[in-house]
């Protein structure tokens, strides 16, 4: 019974994930192979929410890349969106983009520049304004299309007064046009929901893939209704394809298929790829211009199945099976803050703030009803026992 239930749920999850993202198998996929010739692709452009910007479906992710020739090649291939950052490589990413645009002869209005910095609670408005000016100098431009607050991990990171104050001052001076946030970590959904509620952020630049965060499609759809544009990265769900034998047999490309999958969601305007080589530019612009094929869908399904029980999605499904009312998703998330991000004190504070009966104190003596309630087959009880010990350390 258990294995039947598990397999049914797996199929349900995959199908739901597909449907929610617009990956209607009959409508989107094609049995034609992905075009590999540089002549056959046609890179599309999509509106970035209500910003008035139109971005190429593939964006140039310039993390750790300071080669102007690659940026010029990307412009030549039709890529118009460039995601860079002030602090990385001491500003060399931004300088390289300026040089790439200059040598390509690009008109400024034809390029969409995203850049930003990490802003944490307590940040100073003056310092942020200085960072915006430094980015403008390095980019050799008068304005930044989207200035983002980077690596947002908690709701507190979204609600930083200095960020909004600095952004308003810079916007009034014509230096920045739209405010964005980047996020890729476990508390991401809370951050996005807070940003939707606050109505200040105009662009999301986030991790998005075909196996994580089942509620993300719904969040992005709500964001789109509010005019928030979404660009995504890390579509490859962990990039563990090498661990699955023959996954890419028959000339399939797992990374390309994941990009095509992300683009089946109409709320996604663009997928940022780290463009460290000319070949990457060729491959991914080609992928974006081609339809997702049936073999690619099968490959993604297989990957999702094989990686199925390797991580918690914080979906809370298992909570219905707990007779004690344990807040499993929250406990798991706090445990991740603790061990994944090194935010021990904050994680413990969050845990202490849970109503006592929602904590995982009861798990050690329990038979683990929740194990059968996780549609992803995770060993929930074992993890909760460890999480409780970890998070209640101060009280022990």
């Amino acid at each position, binding site marked *: 019974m258990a294995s039947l239930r598990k397999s049914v749920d797996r199929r349900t999850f995959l199908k739901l994930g597909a449907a929610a993202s617009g990956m209607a198998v009959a409508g989107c996929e094609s049995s034609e192979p992905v075009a590999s010739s540089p002549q056959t692709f046609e890179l599309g452009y999509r509106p970035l929410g209500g910003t008035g910007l139109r971005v190429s479906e593939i964006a140039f992710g310039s993390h750790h890349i300071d080669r102007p020739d690659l940026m010029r090649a990307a412009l030549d291939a039709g890529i118009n969106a460039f995601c860079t950052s002030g602090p990385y490589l001491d500003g060399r990413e931004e300088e390289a983009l300026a040089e790439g645009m200059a040598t390509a002869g690009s008109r400024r209005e034809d390029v969409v520049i995203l850049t930003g910095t990490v802003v944490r609670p307590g940040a100073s408005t003056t310092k942020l304004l200085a960072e915006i000016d430094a980015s403008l100098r390095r980019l050799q431009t008068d304005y930044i299309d989207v200035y983002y607050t980077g690596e947002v991990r908690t709701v507190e990171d979204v609600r930083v007064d200095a960020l909004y104050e600095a952004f308003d001052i810079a916007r009034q001076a014509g230096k920045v046009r739209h405010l964005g946030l980047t996020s890729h970590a476990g508390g991401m959904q809370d951050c996005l929901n807070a940003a939707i509620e606050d109505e200040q952020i105009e662009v999301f630049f986030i991790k998005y893939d075909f196996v994580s965060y089942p509620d993300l499609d719904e969040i992005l759809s709500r964001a789109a209704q509010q005019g928030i544009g979404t660009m995504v990265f890390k579509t490859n769900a962990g990039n*563990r394809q090498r661990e699955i034998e023959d996954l890419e047999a028959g000339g399939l490309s797992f990374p390309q298929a994941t990009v095509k999958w992300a683009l089946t969601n109409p709320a996604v305007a663009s997928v940022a790829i780290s463009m460290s080589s000319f070949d990457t530019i060729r491959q991914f612009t080609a992928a974006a211009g081609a339809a997702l094929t049936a073999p690619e869908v099968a490959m993604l399904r297989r990957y999702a199945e094989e990686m199925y029980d390797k991580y918690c999605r914080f979906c809370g499904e298992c909570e219905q099976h707990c007779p004690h009312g344990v807040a499993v998703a929250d406990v798991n998330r706090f445990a991740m803050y603790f061990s994944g991000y*090194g935010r021990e004190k904050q994680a413990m504070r969050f845990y202490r703030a849970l109503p006592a009966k929602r904590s995982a104190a009861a798990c050690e003596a329990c038979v683990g009803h929740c194990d059968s309630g996780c549609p992803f087959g995770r060993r929930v009880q074992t993890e909760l026992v*460890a999480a409780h010990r970890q998070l209640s350390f101060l009280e022990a």
Partner: protein
Amino acid sequence: MKLRYMWCVVALGGVLGCGQQESSKPADRELEALLPELSSRAQWSIAEGPTSHTPDNLWEYLDGGAPQYLAYGFEKMIHIRYQLGDDPLASIAADVYDMGSELGAFGIYSSIRPPTAAIRSWGAEGYRSGAVAAGWKGTVFVHVAADDDRPELIEMLEGLMSEILDRVVGSDSPPPVLRPLPPDGLVPHSERYVAADLHGHAALGGGVLAIYEIDGRRSELFFSELESETAAAAALTTVRSERERWTEEVMDHAAAGEAGFRFEDPGAGSGLVVRSGRYVAGVQGDLPLAAQEALLASLTARLP
């Protein structure tokens, strides 16, 4: 000897390994032992950590940067944040990485070192640029960042760099992979080891590059070792076809080495690329053609 490009194994499990406690492995303790005691530093305390990361969960710590570290052979790291008094905006974050090899430690260090940074004698080499400092020694790479450049923070930052790298046991000589670089005209501290996509060409894999300045004009010299002469010839063909597609002019050129070609790039200047045995080598920049030819010939003569 060179590191091969590794597909970035960025883990779902590590991310999300709910409830999983980072065990304090012996190796973590070794990295922790590099951290100085705070007893001599009045008013400083540990605000966060030390926490450890492995290849499975590095990407949760480094937003987008994990693939680069993995490509250089990253094995583990510890992160700690020190705070001055009770001001949360007067802190210093120190990240200590075990890159698995001296080449990996030098490689990641040299890939982020700004060209104009002030070089410091921390470990094998270090630099400080504003409120950020980095350095390497042995297999260890250290990156330290202060919230801003207040003197008291910079004093702590410099002290940390010096103390951490002094405690590392390992070589502080440049990696042997740099030896073929000709000494004449080499801009000090411009040598880099790149783990993948040398000069934007996936076909080259990793390799070395360095800046040369002659009579006030500069060019970048680079080379990559392939598995065999056949592989080098195939890589050269791919590099040429990519240059034909993405740069303006490509033409045959009988320079030093075999089956060479020359190209013109409107931004980065003209360049030459050749094969020499199982190496592909090239030069690109503002130097006149004759100087580029001489530089390339000097390099290929020194290749093993």
